[in-house]
C-alpha cells in the first residue's frame, strides 16, 4: 500500500540518485545521443522536488500528477514526455488503487504507448520491463537492476537519437535505461515502498 508519504520519500531518493549521477548520465548520452540526459533529468527532478514541497497536502494521485507536470514542463526532449507519461499514468491509476505493481504497470504501459518502443530497441523500455516484473514477483534487487540496465549495451537502437547511429551504437549503454535503474534503486532505498 503506497501512501502519499512513502511516494514522496521514493521520489526524494530518486531525485538524490539523479543529482548524484547527473554527469554520469550525460556522459552515457554523449557517444550515442546529445549529451543532455543527466542535465535534463536533474532539471526535471529539481522542479519536481520544488513542486511537491509547495503542496504538502496532496493525495497519492496528486503527488504523481504534480510530479508529472513538473517533469513535463521542465525536461523537454524525449525523456520529458516519457517520464512525464509514466507519472501521469500512475496518477490516473492512483485514483483507484494504491498498489505499487498496479501503478508501475500503468507507468510502463504509458512509456510504451508514448514512445512506441519494444524490448530490444535499446531504450528505457529495456529496463522498465524486467524491473516492473521483478516488483510484481517480489524479486527486485540491485543485481537485478544492474542486469536489466546492462542488457541495452549490445543492442542496435531502433528508437531515440541513438537510432541515427545504427551499428555504431553497439557496446554503449542507453542513458534512459540507466536513469530508469535509479528509479527502481530508489524503491529499494524507500522503507515501506515494496
Amino acid at each position: 500500500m503506497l501512501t502519499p508519504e512513502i511516494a514522496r520519500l521514493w521520489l526524494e531518493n530518486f531525485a538524490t540518485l539523479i543529482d548524484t549521477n547527473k554527469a554520469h548520465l550525460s556522459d552515457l548520452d554523449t557517444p550515442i545521443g546529445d549529451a543532455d540526459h543527466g542535465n535534463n533529468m536533474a532539471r526535471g527532478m529539481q522542479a519536481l522536488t520544488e513542486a511537491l514541497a509547495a503542496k504538502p497536502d496532496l493525495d497519492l494521485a496528486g503527488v504523481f500528477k504534480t510530479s508529472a507536470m513538473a517533469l513535463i514542463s521542465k525536461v523537454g526532449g524525449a525523456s520529458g514526455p516519457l517520464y512525464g507519461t509514466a507519472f501521469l499514468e500512475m496518477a490516473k491509476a492512483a485514483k483507484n488503487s494504491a498498489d505499487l505493481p498496479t501503478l508501475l504497470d500503468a507507468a510502463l504501459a504509458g512509456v510504451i504507448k508514448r514512445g512506441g518502443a519494444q524490448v530490444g530497441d535499446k531504450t528505457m523500455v529495456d529496463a522498465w520491463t524486467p524491473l516492473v516484473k521483478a516488483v510484481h514477483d517480489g524479486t527486485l534487487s540491485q543485481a537485478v537492476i544492474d542486469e536489466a540496465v546492462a542488457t541495452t549495451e549490445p543492442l542496435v537502437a531502433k528508437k531515440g537519437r541513438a537510432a541515427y547511429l545504427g551499428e555504431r551504437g553497439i557496446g554503449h549503454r542507453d542513458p534512459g535505461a540507466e536513469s530508469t535503474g535509479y528509479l527502481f534503486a530508489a524503491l529499494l532505498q524507500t522503507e515501506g515502498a515494496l
Partner: protein
Amino acid sequence: MKKIINDPAAVVPEMVDGLVRAYPQILEQIPDTTAVVRADKASMVGKVAVISGGGSGHEPTHAGFVGKGMLSAAVCGQVFTSPTPDQIYEAIKASDQGRGVFMVVKNYSGDVMNFDMAKDMAEMDDIQVASIVVDDDIAVENSLYTQGRRGVAGTLFMHKILGHAAQNGASLDDLSKLAAAVLPHINTVAVALSAATVPEAGKPGFTLAEDEIEYGVGIHSEPGYRREKLRPSKALVAELLEKLDDSLHLDSDKQYAVLVNGMGATPLMEQYIFSHDLFDALAVKNITPAFTKVGNLMTSIDMAGISLTIFELADPEWLAALQAPVETIAW
C-alpha cells in the same frame, strides 16, 4: 556565427515577443508560454480549432499560419526542439471552443510524444482532441532512419485544408477523416546548398563545400540521401521531380498543387527560377499545377536550399480549400 540576435538562449522568447507585437491584430501570446493564439476570437466561435507547433527555427511556420481560415494556435518550442506538452496544452485550452481541437503534428519522435501528452492532459479536462502526424518527406525511406518519414513543408497544405474545413464548420471527426484522406497525397523532397546554424550551437549542422549540394536533407539539417557537385536549377528540378514521380506517379489526368519552399537563405529570385524549370518539366508530362505557392514558408533558420512539395488534389474540393482567402501573416 553572424546573426542579428542578443543572447542565443533568449532567441525564442524574444522572437515570439517581436512577432506578437508586430501583428497584434492577428496574434496573441498565451500568458507564460511561447505559444500564440488567434487574436480574432470571433472567427473561432463554434468551430473546431486546428493547431500546430514544433521546434522554432522554421519561421514563418507555425505562427505565421495562425489566423482566420487556417490555424487557431501555434506552439513555438526551443530551436529545433519539440515544445513541452504543458505549452501545447495551454494552446489547446486557449483555442478550444467546445467542439474540440485538432492537432497537426510533424513526424519527429519528440513532437509526436509531446503532442500526445498534451492530448492526454486535455482529455483529463474533457477537451476532445484528435490529431494527424504528417510524414511527407519521401527522402527518408531510403535513409538510415527507423522512425518513418519526417514531416516537412508539405504540412502547410494540411494546415490550409484543415483550417478551411474547420472554418466552414467541420467536426473533429470530419477533420480526422479529411486529414487521413489528404495525408498520402502530400510528398516533399529537398535539396540543400548549406546547413542551418542553431544559435546556441554556433556552427552549422554540417558543412558542404562551395561547389557541393545535398539532396534529401530534412528541416533540421538531418542528412540526406546523396551529395554531389552543384548543378543548374533544371538538373535539380529533374532530380527532385523524379523522386516525387516515383512516389506519386504523376498523371496528366490528375490535378496537383505545388509548393516551392525556400529554406531560409535562398532568395526568391532562385525560387522563381526553380519554379520556371519545374513548370517546364511538368509541362513535358502534360501537367499544369492547379495551385502554386512559392516562398520561404517552412524554413530551416539560415539554410540555403529549396524543398519541393507536390500534392495530388484527389478531391476537387481541396483546390477550393487551398484557394480560399485567409487572414494570416504568411500564407
